[in-house]
């Protein structure tokens, strides 16, 4: 009898963290994780990233908050969330019970806010990593204010790095001139990995009422429409930094995810596609495994970064 060898889906994300497969779900598109339990066993994910957490609960932006666009959507949620304390008290035990691997996305109005949330989350043993949101386009303070220059990202990363020993990921914005330089700054400041891309700033207007469709006027564009931009930026950053790169942007199938791994991403995050098909992330895990088996590729690591350039 010949033993059937299953492909090794595990990936190393640096900072001492290895996850069982390269499929994660993106912050802001997966609630606090438990909302997906009716659809599949969330412990099958490599890691899930909960909605961006701040020091205090946040109300978010007024509606209308979302608009559908061609193969995409614009959102201006404004980081509405329950705050770090309620997350630790009410959500963490349930995620642990579900056997999920989970990371927290964090943001603040000031570097001190980021530091405080990171420090509080460091006390949560079960938390796999902290992802710093340095790129939300929908709030005036925080997010993009820090993420649009190498100096800004370095200062913020250093600050959070001092506050936590947890694996630290920095989520980058595509709304910059040189994403490679910003990724490099995050690496040098102590990030264990970088996540990219966050949403692209967009605008939708109504030609009859002559008004913007979103109350916030502009919003963040996501969905399959942004995949080529995301893929290019991930490819560019993979050539610039030595730390793992987590790719995100318009992934809605195993094929999309494999493309990001091919250009060098160590793992991927699935975002907007979770809205369309709540089972999609589980299907992507299965699809990647099936592809590797069919192609007789032993591991994700063997496939990663094997793009053949002309």
């Amino acid at each position: 009898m010949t033993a059937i060898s299953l492909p090794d889906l595990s990936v190393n994300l640096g900072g001492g963290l290895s996850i069982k497969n390269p499929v994660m779900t993106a912050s802001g598109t997966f609630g606090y994780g438990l909302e997906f339990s009716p659809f599949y066993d969330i412990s099958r994910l490599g890691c899930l990233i909960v909605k961006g957490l701040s020091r205090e609960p946040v109300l978010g932006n007024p509606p209308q908050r979302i608009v559908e666009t061609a193969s995409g959507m614009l959102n201006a949620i404004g980081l509405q969330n329950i705050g770090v304390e309620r997350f630790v008290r009410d959500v963490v035990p349930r995620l642990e019970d579900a056997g999920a691997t989970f990371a927290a996305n964090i943001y603040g109005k000031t570097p001190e806010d980021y530091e405080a949330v990171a420090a509080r989350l460091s006390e949560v043993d079960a938390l796999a990593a902290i992802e710093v949101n340095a790129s939300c386009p929908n709030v005036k303070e925080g997010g993009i204010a820090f993420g649009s220059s190498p100096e800004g990202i370095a200062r913020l990363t250093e600050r959070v790095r001092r506050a936590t020993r947890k694996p630290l990921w920095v989520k980058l914005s595509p709304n910059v001139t040189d994403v490679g330089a910003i990724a490099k700054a995050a690496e040098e400041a102590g990030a264990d990995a970088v996540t990219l891309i966050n949403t692209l700033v967009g605008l939708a207007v109504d030609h009859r009422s002559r008004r913007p469709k979103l109350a916030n006027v502009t919003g963040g564009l996501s969905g399959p429409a942004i995949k080529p931009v995301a893929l290019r930026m991930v490819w560019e950053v993979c050539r610039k930094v030595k730390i793992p790169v987590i790719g995100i942007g318009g992934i809605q199938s195993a094929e999309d995810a494999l493309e990001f791994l091919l250009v060098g991403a160590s793992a991927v995050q699935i975002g907007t596609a979770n809205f369309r098909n709540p089972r999609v992330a589980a299907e992507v895990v299965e699809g990647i495994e099936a592809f590797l088996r069919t192609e007789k590729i032993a591991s994700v690591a063997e496939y990663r970064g094997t793009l053949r350039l002309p």
Partner: protein
Amino acid sequence: MPSSQLGFRKGTIVRNEGHGSIFYRMEVDLPEPVRFVPGQFAMVSGWPGSDPLLPRPFAIFRSGSNAGRHSVEFVYKVVGRGTALLSGLHDGDPVSLTLPLGRGFDLSGEGRTYWLVGGGVGFSTLFPAVDALAHRKAAGFELFLGGRTRDQLPPREWTPGGQAPGRFHLCTDDGTAGFHGTLVDALRERMKGVPAADLARITILACGPHPMLKGLAGLAAGAGVAMQASLENHMACGFGVCWGCVTAIRDGEATAYRRVCKEGPVFDAKEVVW
């Protein structure tokens, strides 16, 4: 509990027909039965590709099981590209459904009379509530249906209620059928002469355009009538994770944002910041 059945399901269209000038009725075969509370909804998609990207929210109109076959029905109106594409699907075409979603109407009030008020396609949310009330002999109800014109009222044969002691009122903006005026005008007329003690035992259940709901909420509050309103909003997921569909709700002195898909779509009209 209906929520225990929440799931993402693949179904097959067995009927998708246009009725009158604007309404379509779609019936979908599913591998398992669907139980729902009147007022709950589904996210529906069925077109190929990713444009449009997001599924569309439709109230669950009916569900049933017969000879091992399970089905769910929706009534919808073509308002944009997504609904236009859905209206072009045929028997045998696959559709994806996430259901049942949201919090439906609370029909538990003992000894109450329900006035169900449906504007436009809003009737599709209310007819399951009529069915539920018709099975409860003790509960009285009246049904008010409104449209801009006669042909924007639901087809007569869809109107539920069986032999229950209900009353039916029609109204049109242009006067081509029933009361000439809006549903708010019709309700105002209906309330005339009703003693305050009787009004206090009435609950309005309403679904329709925002101005109609706002007008009804004002009327109901002024008359001491309870009201549950089924709201609509742009939504991406339908099950509480995108936070896109929020509506402003009174939270003591402050305003909070609650998800139409999760904490709603049915809200106590007094809580809504209209």
